[in-house]
């Protein structure tokens, strides 16, 4: 990131072995600066079970393991889809919008809610984890990641709900649906990056979480969820490119609704944005995380 102080550079070889597990640790003055990334990633991977257990705990706390608890999580986006369907139906006048559009709306909302849930759940993960952060040394990135995993576990059952709608709408099944796997992976990557970004920002500006609902709402309206991507007027096409979810949700709808492999521009934009956000959020978070304990 920014230029390292001299002592940091000297200390780098000594700390390269392993940040958390090695036989020898040296802690020197530092505020900003990346820890050695290889060992960091290894330690993150070694501790992944903790993030999963935290996610599971979050879900249990929301009564996810009861029938009605799960039903509610699914009902919420389903009812929302009905509301938006009605809205679009009225705005557009009668006609052209049938079950097929409802399937598009539902799939888009479910995917969008995975991303926005990830962000909502991870934003307070660092500031809310004060006791944990002050008393244990571990890669802090686990905290926002637990939020993303929670959102992912909530996202999976909604996919099951989508299936009957897909069948009722008479949409095709086929080998092109294998594209869903890389697309969901890209969503996960983007959600993790965005989660790390907002949770680190929240440490410095405690009102980030208050701005978030407005930001997320605008993001939804500028994404091809309430409309098809090819309905966007020519003059406004740039929104699809500037919106991190533009390409991704276009590809999502291409595969699920249109029944063909995503167009190259869509998958290209999706990949670029996902990894871009992941890198930006990840580097920002990891370079700042050693300062979190002081800031809480």
């Amino acid at each position, binding site marked *: 990131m920014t230029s390292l102080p001299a002592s940091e550079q000297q200390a780098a070889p000594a700390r390269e072995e392993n940040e*958390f*597990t090695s*036989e*020898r*640790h*040296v*802690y*020197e*003055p*530092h*505020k900003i600066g990346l820890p050695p990334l290889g060992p960091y990633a290894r330690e993150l991977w*070694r*501790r992944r*079970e*903790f993030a999963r*257990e*935290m996610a599971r*705990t979050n879900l*249990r*706390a929301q009564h996810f393991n009861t029938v009605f608890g799960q039903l509610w999580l699914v009902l919420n986006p389903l009812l929302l889809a009905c509301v938006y369907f009605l809205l679009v139906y009225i705005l557009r006048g009668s006609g052209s919008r049938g079950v097929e559009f409802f399937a598009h709306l539902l799939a888009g909302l479910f995917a969008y809610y995975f991303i926005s849930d990830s962000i909502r759940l991870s934003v307070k993960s660092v500031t809310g984890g004060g*006791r*944990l*952060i*002050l*008393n*244990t*040394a*571990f890669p802090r990135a686990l905290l926002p990641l637990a939020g993303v995993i929670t959102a992912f576990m909530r996202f999976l059952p909604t996919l099951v709900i989508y299936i009957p709608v897909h069948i009722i709408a008479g949409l095709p099944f086929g080998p092109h649906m294998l594209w869903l796997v890389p697309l969901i992976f890209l969503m996960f990557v983007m959600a993790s990056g965005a989660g790390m970004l907002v949770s680190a920002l929240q440490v*410095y*500006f*405690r*009102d*980030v979480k208050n*701005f978030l609902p407005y930001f997320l709402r605008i993001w939804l309206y500028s994404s091809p969820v309430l409309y098809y991507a090819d309905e966007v007027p020519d003059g406004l096409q740039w929104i699809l490119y500037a919106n991190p979810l533009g390409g991704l949700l276009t590809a999502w709808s291409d595969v699920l609704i249109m029944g063909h492999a995503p167009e190259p521009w869509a998958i290209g934009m999706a990949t670029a944005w996902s990894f871009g956000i992941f890198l930006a959020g990840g580097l920002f978070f990891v370079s700042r995380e*050693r*300062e979190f*304990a*002081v*800031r809480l």
Partner: protein
Amino acid sequence: MTYRTSLESAPTLKSTVLKLGRRERVIREVHALKGVSFEVPEGQVLGVVGANGAGKSTLMRTVAGILPPNSGRVEVHGRVSTLLALGVGFNRKMTGRQNVVLGGLAAGLTRDQLAEKYDEIVSFAELEDFMDMPMRTYSSGMYGRLAFAVAVTMEPEILLIDEALSVGDARFRKKSFRKMRELCTEDRTILLVSHALGSIKELCDQAIWIHKGELRMWDEPENVVDAYTEFLEVGEDAFTMEDV
């Protein structure tokens, strides 16, 4: 180690924007530790004494790598485990069983290790009948016992222990003191913060006394404890407050 304490309750974007206009910074610096230097040889137990707010917990967190120092250098050879507060990572809505898993994973154990240690933890805490009840239904003593049991089951090379490990009734305290002594006699390096001066004398090989962020004394435990009690002017009364 310097803390920057902001006088505002919480930093916000709004206040930052406002401050940009006024160019003021409401920050008061607290120097929690100033030039504290010491060394602990492998396998020894170091006791840390000092009044409230002397910087003992900050010292522990700096050694653990949780708080970065502003200047100076901390060198640690070995795997560190911290026992700074009880019940870190616990969730009161969850059952005891789930919390053992959660707390253990937070402390860096693997699932396999946990499965192996689970019975040991439960029998140490003597909570066999309560493991499937949510922890919010536990009494505070039971909560503390389970937290302590999870904490001492880790087997690190270097252990940092902060005070407030006195939980449960008299019987459980005795048991946890025995456990602590067992940990201290094994071949591991321990930094022990305690107000129980008798335990410091009994368990430690050497001791330091921190006063207002500065290293006041570094000597045999007897000498440090004597000097410290003299300083506190509480005399022999201190030894009746027997805690670990």
